């Protein structure tokens, strides 16, 4: 049986904290009430392995201490046993997500093992994530007064967004939904010949979330009727997901006026 800490119908009262303890290490504490809803009627002990995906990510798990206990049990006037035993913590080698494994044991005529509580304390190596890239445009659209990136920052809004697709009826069955998550900053600006180029960086976007970077161009760029000025991706992935094993991505953009007839 698998449960997910980020789903409230599988884990209630989910809480987690992350403390910087120095030395590029983090202390994670994750707790919740795992919802089994396991009801049976038997005189023989039955066991079930349960894995709780903790929705926290790490490349290297140094130490972990799991703590588990009963949270919700019931019995119908019979002999009974309720156990939550053998807790252990691991990290998925592909996604880097931490998980808690336990074994639950029940018997009774009847008995119900509805929930157990857990708290995991884990020491992990900090894994930082970054997205970076360039934004290029011709001077005819906007000429910065200097190579200070602050002079163009108000006119270039860079954001890492959560990317979701929703399905519906009709010809526009699939719609793209973007939720802004982490803003970017402009780190440098170069002006050469007729071209300007800004370098942006987005620090610590989340892992395990489909991301899409957008650049919105503000009115500081030359606008003319019928020719909106837009930033389009010219290299790098449109949508991507970061993990402890792929912690960075590069996406480049170019700004141009789009002539509409």
């Amino acid at each position: 049986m698998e449960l997910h800490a980020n789903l409230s119908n599988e884990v209630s009262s989910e809480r987690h904290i992350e403390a910087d303890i120095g030395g590029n290490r983090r202390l994670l504490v994750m707790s919740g009430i795992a919802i089994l809803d396991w009801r049976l009627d038997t005189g023989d002990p039955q066991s079930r392995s349960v894995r709780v995906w903790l929705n926290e990510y790490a490349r290297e798990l140094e130490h972990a201490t799991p703590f588990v206990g009963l949270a919700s049990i019931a019995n119908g006037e019979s002999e009974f046993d309720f156990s939550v035993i053998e807790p252990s913590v691991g990290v998925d080698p592909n996604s880097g997500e931490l998980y808690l494994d336990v074994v639950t044991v029940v018997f009774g005529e009847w008995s119900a093992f509805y929930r157990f509580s857990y708290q995991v304390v884990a020491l992990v190596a900090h894994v930082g994530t970054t997205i970076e890239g360039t934004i290029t445009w011709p001077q005819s659209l906007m000429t910065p007064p200097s190579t200070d990136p602050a002079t163009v920052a108000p006119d270039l809004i860079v954001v890492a967004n959560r990317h979701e697709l929703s399905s519906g009826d009709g010809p526009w069955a699939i719609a793209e939904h973007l939720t802004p998550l982490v803003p970017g900053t402009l780190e440098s600006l170069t002006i050469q010949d007729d071209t300007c180029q800004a370098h942006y960086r987005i620090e610590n976007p989340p892992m395990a979330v489909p991301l899409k970077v957008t650049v919105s161009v503000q009115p500081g760029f030359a606008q003319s009727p019928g020719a909106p000025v837009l930033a389009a991706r010219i290299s790098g992935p449109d949508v991507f997901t970061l993990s402890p094993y792929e912690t960075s991505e590069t996406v480049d953009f170019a700004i141009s006026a789009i002539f509409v007839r």
Partner: protein
Amino acid sequence: MDAFPKVVARIPVAGPDPFNTLVSVSQSGYGAGTGVVTQRVGSFGGGWSKTQMVFKTEFWLIGYDPRQRNPFVHSTSVVMHHMGTTQDFAFQFSIDDVFAGFDDHGCWTVIADLVTEVPEPPFFGGPNLASYAPYVSSWVLCHEPPLEQHTRREQDPRLHRFTGGDR
């Protein structure tokens, strides 16, 4: 053996802002004599009982000011540390939800939504009693004044003569 069990551990941390302290507090309601939940069902009644357990821990935030926002984040777990019934009857004990925060005096307080089901006793029998005790474990990221401030206050020269230093 200590007269008072040490159930609160304070760990200095570098962040994230604005936090500088990680506090771990673990307490059993049974041992502390508080937080033991008892449902008593007499000749009438029985069935479901919903209660909210308010568990005052021994963690008090240093420098707590009720007029100001005292930022914190936490991870809190409540489990059944003890359970028992006085008769052979069907039961349910549940910890459904857990909340936590500082009360108006800066005491770390854990609140758990509890559900108990105990049947009505036989007509000529005594009451049905069911009790259970929680064990609470909280980890709290918070901000407390650095220890150096207290040390400086002790070294205030106006207080020096009371410490025997002038003699």
